């Protein structure tokens, strides 16, 4: 594996960039693996990477129905933050944030992690109370988050309209300065490269059509159009398609899959210094390093696998953005797209063992799992390697829907996150 450095970039540049080698091979499946991971998103690739690096398990295949990173990893608006209300979530997302801070060095691959701060706008008395509660809870958990007056918010993000006459008046904001964005594709590519260098097979264009288990109820392997592939352990990390894959193993999940849309504007010079989220009006915005405004919205109201979503939602989101940032009124939008997100009743993930021996699941990240990528991957690898929960992912069981011990971020935020 080439080591990337300023020197290697310079050397290749002088050679006309003609001699870059392939960063990971497109593997053909073997007959059998110790571990198969279904889904080559950031979570699945990351889990393969940590299995190899931290647990010495390298006989691993990551099997992907399309191309790696082509799911929600490559479709999301890349907001990274950890200021969740409950202790369990704060620990998990803050663990991820700790890993984000060192990820480019860890992978020797620039994931362009930028801690430009994420500001959440409060538009109503309810918002103010709820965000201040979050700030206090976060501080008790040693999670960075602070309260800003509307003037402070404006100083942090000058395009913001804080006038009294605004359609959505700003009453203040919560700011996590440690939060920010990262380059989504680079996360998938960096983990893929690191995993492949340690012997992991990455198999693309190969849908897993069923999971097979033996008479004792232990997992046996996966069916694919390229034949049956045996495995001692299987971990499913298939985001919006998890219900379908897990159904074939007889495991029914508390998931519903919705389209979630995003769009980008034409690129412009740097104008937007941070990330702003407005949960009340369902609009999220930041500026990519290429200069595009990256805008996200809430999910469509109906479940779907169409990966399209409806225009009314985009209209609503763009209208909200124009009200909050009148300066963007005449920006032209370039592209819009959707991903299929897997939503749980309490809006918290499911990460751990399943009733099938040797079968693990990582799902339910819904509208907000990009930020969790390194943390989810890291603790999933632990769980797969040791066949037991990691202290950080332990509360995120499937059993909580039977026991009632929910991690109710849904009630805490009352919106997509």
């Amino acid at each position, binding site marked *: 594996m080439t080591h990337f450095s300023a020197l290697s970039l310079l050397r290749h540049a002088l050679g006309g960039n003609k001699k870059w080698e392939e960063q990971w091979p497109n593997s053909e499946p073997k007959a059998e693996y110790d571990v198969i991971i279904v889904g080559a998103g950031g979570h699945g690739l990351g889990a393969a990477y940590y299995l190899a690096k931290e647990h010495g398990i390298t006989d691993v295949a990551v099997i992907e129905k399309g191309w790696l990173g082509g799911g929600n990893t490559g479709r999301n608006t890349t907001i990274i933050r950890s200021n969740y209300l409950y202790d369990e979530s704060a620990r998990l997302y803050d663990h991820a944030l700790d890993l984000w801070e060192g990820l480019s060095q860890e992978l020797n691959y620039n994931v362009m992690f930028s801690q430009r701060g994420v500001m959440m706008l409060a538009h109503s008395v309810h918002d103010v109370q709820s965000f201040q509660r979050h700030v206090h809870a976060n501080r008790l958990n040693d999670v960075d988050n602070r309260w800003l007056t509307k003037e402070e918010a404006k100083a942090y993000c000058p395009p913001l309209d804080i006038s009294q006459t605004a359609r959505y008046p700003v009453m203040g904001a919560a700011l996590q300065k440690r939060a920010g964005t990262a380059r989504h594709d680079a996360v998938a590519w960096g983990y893929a490269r690191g995993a492949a260098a340690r012997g992991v097979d990455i198999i693309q264009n190969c849908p897993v059509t069923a999971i097979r288990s033996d008479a004792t109820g232990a997992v046996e392997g996966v069916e694919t159009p390229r034949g049956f592939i045996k495995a001692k352990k299987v971990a499913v990390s298939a985001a919006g398609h998890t219900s*379908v894959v897990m159904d074939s193993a007889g495991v029914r999940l508390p998931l519903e899959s919705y389209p979630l849309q995003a769009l980008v504007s034409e690129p412009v010079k740097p104008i937007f210094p941070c990330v702003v989220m407005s949960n009340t009006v369902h609009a999220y915005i930041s500026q990519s390093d290429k200069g595009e405004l990256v805008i996200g919205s809430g999910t469509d*109201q109906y479940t779907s696998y*169409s990966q399209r979503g409806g225009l009314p939602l985009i209209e609503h989101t763009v209208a909200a953005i124009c009200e909050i940032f009148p300066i963007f009124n005449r920006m032209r939008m370039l592209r819009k797209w959707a991903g299929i997100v897997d939503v749980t009743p309490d809006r918290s993930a499911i990460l751990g063992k399943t009733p099938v021996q040797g079968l693990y699941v990582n799902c339910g990240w819904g509208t907000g799992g990009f930020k969790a990528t390194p943390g989810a991957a890291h603790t999933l690898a632990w769980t797969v390697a040791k066949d037991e929960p990691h202290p950080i992912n332990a509360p995120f069981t499937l059993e909580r829907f039977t026991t009632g011990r929910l991690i109710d971020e849904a009630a805490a935020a009352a919106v997509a996150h």
Partner: protein
Amino acid sequence: MLLIHCPYCDETLPEAEFAYAGEAHIVRPDNPADVSDEEWRDFLFIRNNLKGPHYERWRHIHGCGRFFNAVRNTVTDRFLTTYRAGERRPDPESLPEDGQ
């Protein structure tokens, strides 16, 4: 935008008039105190979430205000049929082919 047929108003109208209300034909246990935790979980949380014809509830919030049921293909988002609440769940075989 989806176009949805309200079986009460007998009109096909834009999605903006309607609210999605989740999977249909999930029956609340008659006596919740009698069911096991697993059954209660299934009732509250477990959903089919399937790819294909999906039986679901909608409500005509900006029209007659009533709940009704629909079968929609979740891959194409096309409605195969809509019918009134309380009517029998149509057989999958009786539904029109998607794409018509």
